[in-house]
């Protein structure tokens, strides 16, 4: 027995070779560029010590202010997306003949690119767009409507493009919860609101936290819509615009890398905070016993 076991332990499991392509892919397309950018950010173009880029970022108003600007867009957009997705997905948890259609309708924006959405929004929400003309035609609102080329344009675009993602994630978490649990709660006297409050919500918290983190990361890296629908020099000068300007207007790749590193770090901090908070809640099976 003993020699057999020893040879078993020492032998190489060939199925591990299946990991090679994925590992190569990660190394070539993520790890190497990331490490390259990281070391590049510590070699400032104009000298001044290895931290000069970071020092400049945090002392220049129109650079480090972009963190707040981006957060001001990404946090409300994520809150709206999850906040709207949750009640809709909750209603959709029960099978109905409309479910397929509504889901399809809600998910369509996922298939549109950001640029296409921006194009549509310019036509719809613009000063001479359909919305403005309709409101004026019915004399509902006579003043100028400014929903593009400012903060609101970018926020609306983030909601349109981010909602389907948040909705699909939330829906899958909700439908994963054992439907006999709320039924049991009902027989014990829980009203529909209490069934949601005491059964669904606590079991959904980990999933919602995950959906929030993913939606946030997506919104925080906003770029095309901030340029096309916002005011890239002012209210929607997000952090990715700062990186873009460094790289392609000032040709300072080192500074651009530093900005990208800061961006990644902020995302990491937020995600870590959310997942850390998630650890305070129940995480485990969402069924009520043996099935």
């Amino acid at each position, binding site marked *: 027995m003993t020699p057999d076991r020893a040879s078993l332990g020492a032998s190489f499991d060939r199925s591990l070779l299946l990991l090679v392509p994925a590992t190569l892919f990660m190394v070539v397309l993520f790890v190497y560029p990331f490490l390259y950018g990281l070391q590049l950010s510590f070699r400032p173009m104009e000298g001044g010590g290895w931290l000069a880029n970071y020092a400049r970022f945090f002392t220049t108003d129109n650079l480090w202010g972009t963190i707040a600007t981006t957060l001001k867009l990404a946090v409300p957009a994520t809150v709206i997306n999850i906040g709207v997705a949750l009640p809709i997905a909750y209603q959709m948890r029960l099978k109905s003949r409309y479910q397929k259609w509504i889901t399809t309708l809600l998910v369509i924006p996922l298939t549109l690119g950001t640029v296409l959405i921006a194009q549509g929004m310019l036509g719809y929400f613009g000063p001479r767009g359909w919305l403005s003309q309709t409101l004026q035609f019915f004399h509902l609102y006579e003043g100028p409507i400014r929903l593009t080329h400012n903060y609101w344009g970018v926020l609306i675009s983030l909601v349109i493009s981010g909602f389907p993602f948040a909705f699909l994630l939330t829906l899958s978490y909700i439908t994963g919860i*054992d439907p*006999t649990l709320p*039924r*049991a709660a009902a*027989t*014990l*006297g829980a009203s529909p609101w209490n069934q949601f409050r005491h059964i669904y919500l606590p079991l959904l918290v980990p999933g919602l936290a995950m959906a929030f983190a993913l939606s946030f990361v997506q919104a925080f890296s906003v770029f095309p819509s901030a340029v096309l629908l916002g005011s890239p020099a002012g209210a929607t000068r997000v952090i990715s615009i700062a990186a873009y300007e460094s790289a392609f207007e000032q040709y300072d790749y080192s500074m651009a890398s530093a900005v990208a590193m800061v961006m990644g770090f902020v995302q990491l901090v937020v995600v870590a905070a959310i997942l850390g908070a998630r650890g305070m809640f129940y995480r485990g099976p969402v*069924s*009520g*016993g043996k099935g």
Partner: protein
Amino acid sequence: MTSNFSELRLDRVTRRFGLGKNAQVFTALDALSMNIQRGEFIALLGPSGCGKSTALNCIAGLLPVSDGSIWLDDTRIDILPPEKRGFGMVFQNYALFPHMSVSRNVGFGLAMRGVSASETAQRVKRALDLVQLNAHADKLPGQLSGGQQQRVAIARAIVIEPPLVLMDEPLSNLDAKLRLEMRAEIRRIHKELGRATIYVTHDQDEALSLADRVVVMKDGVAQQIAAPHTIYSQPANLHVARFMGYRNLLPMAVRHAQGETLWLEGSGLALSGRMMQPIASSGSQALVAIRPEEFDIASEPGDNSFPVQVTNVEYCGHDNIVDVQTLAGMKLIVRSTARCEVGHNVLLHIAPNKVLAYPDDGSAAP
């Protein structure tokens, strides 16, 4: 909702389901009417798809009824949502809240009723004492065994002191030994609390051993509502007979009748038996139902006895399952403690009151 009701009344309770787009309607429960007295234990018994769980869900309020009504004394309750009915329900998969400790699970119904914290603690403790789980009060359901989870589910359902306890195949997820233990446990708790209980099962042993009255169901229709011994010894029709273990069904012709006693011939046999359902007249076709364990091995020929040849013996510990063949080639199943050997001829005897004759409605094909 008070627990001091005297009667739950089901009045032609019907539930239909629409199937898909072509609006085909399937009647899962067809006009079930019955009265359930305070403290009574009722078992709904039938194969899967017979409508027993549908009936339970209609009573619990988890499924709206399509027709008919449900009354608790003089209150019509089928129009109330489940949370207003206040019946305790035990689910097949237990449906314990996985994120709450055992004591919070049990206390959930009390919290929903706004019972004070100190009273809740007291009543939860009493309920957990009853199911002998106080040592596990702070655990999560996932940390308990199947039998323990089942007991938490029972404690959670009875702690609200419901007028009626509903149980949906509560033992079907347990292994055989635990199932027997929990069966005794459920009987003990029912005796102790005296709460009216409706218990859904497909296991005839469970139904017979637990219930005061059994409702045998098939295709959404209650076939017979009676005490266990009546169901067992006098099945109202062939469906009930087959479900209650009458495995031998012989087509025979009625020779003549006198009161409830019939003389029958067919399959190479001549037997006297009991008429269980009106059969038209002499000469009409009947199906005779006999339980394998009702046969005796006779020593000498007499009335209601006939020779058979043993074709197979299956040893079952306490007794044997013996396959036999009559001289006319009719196959029968016999359970006997006597020793039989394959190939030997034996004489079988069957008491006339154990030969149950039903009109042959063409549904005998197994």
